C-alpha cells in the first residue's frame, strides 16, 4: 500500500474565538480523521499481534551511549569488566551492574535485548538510526517512530499534542517526510512551566489580536484559492489547535508539581525522574508517544564514575515508571523502550573511559505486548568478537514496535523525492512477543 503523507486536517474558513466554536471546529476536524482511522482499524484486524494491540509508547533515550558493561550486560571479573559488581535480578541467572537494584526487581515485567547492533557509531547518525529505524541519507528525513505512530494512529479526542519530547537532546523526534506537524512537541523539565502556552497579552488581548489578524488574513486571501488554508498553509488550522491547547484542561498532565511529594520522590528528584512521571501522566491523558531523554552517558573518560552517576538517576525513574504504568493499568497497552543510540567499547581506553560501540548493546523493552522476563542475545565476555550472538538490528526493533501497535510496517509512504518508503524495513522479533 502506498499513501501520500498529507495531513488529515480540515477546519472552518474563519477564526473562531469561543471555546464552543473551537470545539465545533474540532468536531469537524475529527470527522475528517475518521476515514483513515476506519481504514486503520480494518487494517489492524489483518495484522494485529496476539491480544489487543498497544496504543501508546514511551521511549527513554539514554543519550551519549550507555555502557552495556556497566548497566545491563556486566562482565565482572573479566578483563573487560572494568571492576563492575553484578547483582541478581528477578530473573534467575540474569545479572545487572550494581546500582540497578530497583530495575532488577521488576525484570519479570521487562525483557532485555543484549545484542542490539547498528552501523552507526556517531552520536547524531546513531540517534537518527535508533529513532527512525533507518540510516541517514541526504535530502530526505525519515520520520521518528513516534511520528509514525501519531500518523498511523491519530487520536482526535486529545486536545494537547499527541507526540511529546521531554528534555530533548539536540535531535528531538521529527516528522520527517510525514510533515513537520508530526514533530514532537518539546518541553524541558516538567518542574518548569510549559513553554509558549500562556498568551503573552492575556486572554482578552489574544482575542483582540486575533480579531485584527482576521483583517490581514482577509486581505491576503483575495485572489487566492479558497482552500489555500486547508490544502496548503494550515495556518488557521494550527492557530485553532494552538488555541485549543492553550485553553485545555489536559495541559495539567504536564504539571507534576501537584503530584504528592512521596509519589514524586520515588522517581528521584531529577529532571529525568520528573520527565518519567510526566510521561506516565501524559499517556494516561491519551498522548500517543512520549520520549524522555537522559543525557550524560558519553563517558570517553572516567567511564565507571560517569556511568554510575547516570545509573543512579535511571534506576529510580525507570523502575517507578514501569511500576506506575502497571498500577494504573496502562502497561498492557503502553510499550516502553529504554536504551541509547549505541553502547560502549569492551576495551577501556587510556583515560579510563570507553568509546562508542554499536556492535552489541542493550535495550530494555516492556509493556504493550512485549513479554517480560526474557533475554535475547549474548555478547562476548572477552570483548574480542565484534558480533554478538543472535543480533537484533535497529530496524527489527522498529518493526516489532509497529507490529505490537497493530501497524503494518510494510506500508509504504510516498515521499517528496518521489520514492515510496516503507514504515520499517525490519523484521518482527516474534520471540519478544507475549
Amino acid at each position, binding site marked *: 500500500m502506498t499513501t501520500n503523507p498529507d495531513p488529515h486536517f480540515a477546519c472552518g474558513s474563519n477564526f473562531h474565538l469561543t471555546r464552543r466554536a473551537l470545539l465545533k471546529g474540532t468536531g469537524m476536524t475529527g470527522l475528517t480523521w475518521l476515514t483513515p482511522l476506519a481504514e486503520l482499524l480494518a487494517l489492524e484486524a489483518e495484522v494485529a499481534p496476539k491480544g489487543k494491540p498497544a496504543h501508546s509508547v514511551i521511549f527513554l533515550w539514554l543519550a551519549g551511549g550507555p555502557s552495556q558493561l556497566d548497566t545491563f550486560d556486566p562482565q565482572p571479573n573479566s578483563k573487560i569488566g572494568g571492576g563492575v559488581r553484578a547483582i541478581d535480578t528477578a530473573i534467575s541467572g540474569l545479572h545487572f551492574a550494581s546500582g540497578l537494584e530497583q530495575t532488577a526487581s521488576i525484570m519479570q515485567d521487562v525483557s532485555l535485548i543484549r545484542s542490539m547492533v547498528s552501523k552507526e557509531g556517531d552520536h547524531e547518525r546513531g540517534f537518527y538510526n535508533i529513532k527512525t529505524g533507518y540510516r541517514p541519507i541526504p535530502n530526505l528525513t525519515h520520520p521518528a517512530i513516534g511520528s509514525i505512530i501519531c500518523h498511523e494512529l491519530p487520536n482526535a479526542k486529545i486536545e494537547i499534542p499527541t507526540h511529546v519530547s521531554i528534555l530533548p537532546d539536540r535531535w528531538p523526534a521529527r516528522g520527517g517526510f510525514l510533515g513537520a506537524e508530526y514533530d514532537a512537541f*518539546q518541553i524541558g523539565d516538567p518542574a518548569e512551566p510549559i513553554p509558549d502556552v500562556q498568551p503573552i497579552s492575556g486572554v482578552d488581548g489574544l482575542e483582540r489580536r486575533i480579531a485584527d489578524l482576521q483583517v490581514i488574513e482577509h486581505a491576503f486571501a483575495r485572489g*487566492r484559492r479558497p482552500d489555500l488554508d486547508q490544502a496548503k498553509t494550515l495556518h488557521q488550522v494550527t492557530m485553532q489547535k494552538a488555541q485549543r491547547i492553550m485553553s485545555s484542561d489536559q495541559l495539567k498532565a504536564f504539571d507534576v508539581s501537584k503530584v504528592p511529594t512521596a509519589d514524586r520522590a520515588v522517581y528521584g528528584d531529577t529532571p529525568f525522574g520528573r520527565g518519567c512521571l510526566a510521561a506516565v501522566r501524559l499517556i494516561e491523558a491519551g498522548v500517543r508517544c512520549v520520549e524522555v531523554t537522559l543525557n550524560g552517558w558519553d563517558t570517553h573518560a572516567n567511564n565507571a564514575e560517569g556511568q554510575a552517576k547516570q545509573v543512579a538517576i535511571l534506576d529510580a525513574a525507570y523502575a517507578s515508571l514501569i511500576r506506575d504504568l502497571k498500577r494504573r493499568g496502562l502497561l498492557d497497552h503502553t510499550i516502553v523502550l529504554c536504551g541509547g543510540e549505541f553502547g560502549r567499547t569492551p576495551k577501556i581506553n587510556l583515560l579510563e573511559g570507553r568509546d562508542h560501540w554499536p556492535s552489541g548493546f542493550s535495550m530494555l523493552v516492556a509493556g504493550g505486548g512485549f513479554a517480560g522476563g526474557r533475554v535475547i542475545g549474548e555478547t562476548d565476555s572477552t570483548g574480542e568478537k565484534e558480533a554478538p550472538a543472535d543480533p537484533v538490528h535497529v530496524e527489527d526493533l522498529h518493526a516489532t514496535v509497529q507490529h505490537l501497535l497493530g501497524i503494518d510496517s510494510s506500508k509504504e509512504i510516498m515521499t517528496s523525492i518521489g*520514492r515510496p518508503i516503507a514504515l520499517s524495513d525490519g523484521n518482527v522479533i516474534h520471540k519478544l512477543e507475549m
Partner: protein
Amino acid sequence: MKFFSSSRSWPTWLRHSILLAIVIGSAAIELRSLLSLPVAVQSQPILKALPNEEDIRNTARIVDTAFEAAWNQNNIQPASRADTLTIVRRLSLALTGSIPSLQEIRELEMHPEDERVAWWFTHLLVDRRSSNYLAERLARVYVGTEDGPFIVYRRRRLVEWLSDELYANQPYDQIVRSLIDAQGIWTTNPESNFISVTVEPDKGPSEAKLATRVSRAFLGVQMDCVQCHDGKLDSNWKQQDFHQLAAFFGQSGFALTGLCDDPKDKYEFRYLRQKEEKIIGAVVPWQPELLPEHGAPRQRLAKWVTARDNKPFARTFVNRLWALMLNRPLVLPIDEIPLNGPFPPGLEILADDFSSHGYDVQRLIRVIVATRVFQLRSDSTDPNKLLTTEAEQQWAAFPMTRLRPDQMAGSVIQAASLNTLDAETHVIFRLKRSIDVNNFVQRYGDVGEDEFGNQSGTITQRLLLMNGNMISNNIGTDVLTTAAARISLLAPDSSTAIETAYLAVLTRRPSTMEAEYFSAKLAKTQENKTRSIAMSDIYWSLLNSTEFSWNH
C-alpha cells in the same frame, strides 16, 4: 525593562552591554527619519546599468520563451507581474534569509520605480549577508548539518571559506574542484572539511559517503541507492558504478600535514554475492573521455566532474540555485536529474549559459531574477479567475512556500528593528541576533538538508509565534528596544504609523480597508501607553499572519 527581564537567560554583562549600546546608538532623530519619506537618508549612488545587463535580459527572455511555450501548450494563463516590493522581499529572503528593513525600503524608494529591482539586487550582492547566507545553504548540500567528527572537522570554517569564495564571485567549477581535491589541515585549508566530515573512527574518510555527496551535490544523480546491490528502487545504476566512483577517494587519508593522498592505499570492497573483498578501480560513470589520464585520483575526478562538457554538473547547480531563489527546484527530486532528459523549460538554457559564462554564480542569479517566472505574482488580480494548482506547478505563478526556520527568525528580528541588521551593525547587536536566531531555530525546528519539502506549520511553531519570547521581546512597549513602540511614539499620525508597521513587517503598504481599520483602532487611543499597546497588538497580528510566514 521588560525586554531584559524576559531575557533572563542572557548573561548580565551582555544585557548591560546591549543596554549601553542602545542608549548610545539610538538617536530619536535618526529613527524619526525612517517614519516618512521626505527626510533625507544616506543612500548608495543610484544604480547605473549593471555590466552585461542587456545580455542578461536576452538570456532571461530566452528562458521566458521556453516557459511561455509550455503555458500555451497547456492552455495556462500566467499570473501578472508582482509589484516591486514583493519582488524585493523575495530577493531579500533568498539572498539574506531575512525580509528587508524599513531603512532599506526607504532607501530603495528614493530611486525611480524602474530601477528599484536592479538597485536592490546590486545592494544585496555587495552585502556580506548574501554570501554568508548562500554559503550556509550550499554547505548543507556539501556537508549536511551534522557537527561531524570534532577532531578533524570544522563546519564553521568551511562555511566561512565558501562565503569568501561566493563574495569574490569565484567560478563555481573552481570552488568544486577545491572541495573534491582538498589537501591540508581542516582549520587552515577549510575546503578540506568537505572530505574530513566523512571521517569514521579508525577508518579515515569514508569513500562511500564521499561518492554519495559528489554524485548528489555536483552531478544530480542518486547512485548511493545501489550501494549494497543492483536494481534497488528501479535504479538503472549498478552497484559497480557507485563503488568505482567511491574508489577515487580510496587514497585519501591523514598525515601530519593533514588531508593528503597516499598512492599505496586502495579502495577495497566486497560486492554482493562475492566471497572476498577486491580492489576496485576508479572509473567514472559516464563520459570517460573527459577524465584526465594523469594525476592523483581526486584531482582527476575533480576535473572530470567540472569539465565543460559534463553537462550534469551545470544542470545540478542551476536546479539547486533555482530552488534557493524560488524555493522549489525545476526538477524534483532536486538531486535526481535525468542524464538525457527530458528537461523542464529553462533548465538547459540556464545550464548552457552558466557553463558558457565561466560558471559565474552572480550572473546566474541575475538571469534567474530577470526571468518572468521570478517576477510573477503568486495570486490572481482577477477574483473570478483564480490561479490553479497546475498553474503554480507549471511556474505560471510564483510558488507560495513557507519560510524556512532561519528565514522566519531573521525576519522576526529584522521586523522588530527599523534599521538594517547587517555587517555594519554593532557587534553586540549582531551577537544578540545570532543568539536569538539559534534559540528560535532550535525551538522552531531546523529542516536540516531537507530544505524544499512542502512543509506546513506545526503547533509548536504556531505557539512559538503566538507566545514565544522572541515575539514578546520584539513587539513589547519598550521604546528603546522595539519597533512597535518606536513607531507608536514617533509617527506623526495613525495613518503613517500603520503604513510604517506594514512596511517593516510585510514589506507592503496596507490596503485601503486595512488602513482604515487599523487607523481607527489607533485613533481611539488617547494616551501614549494605550497607543503603544494597540501598536503592539498590530505588530503581533502582522507577525502571526499567513502572509508573513510564507514566501509569496
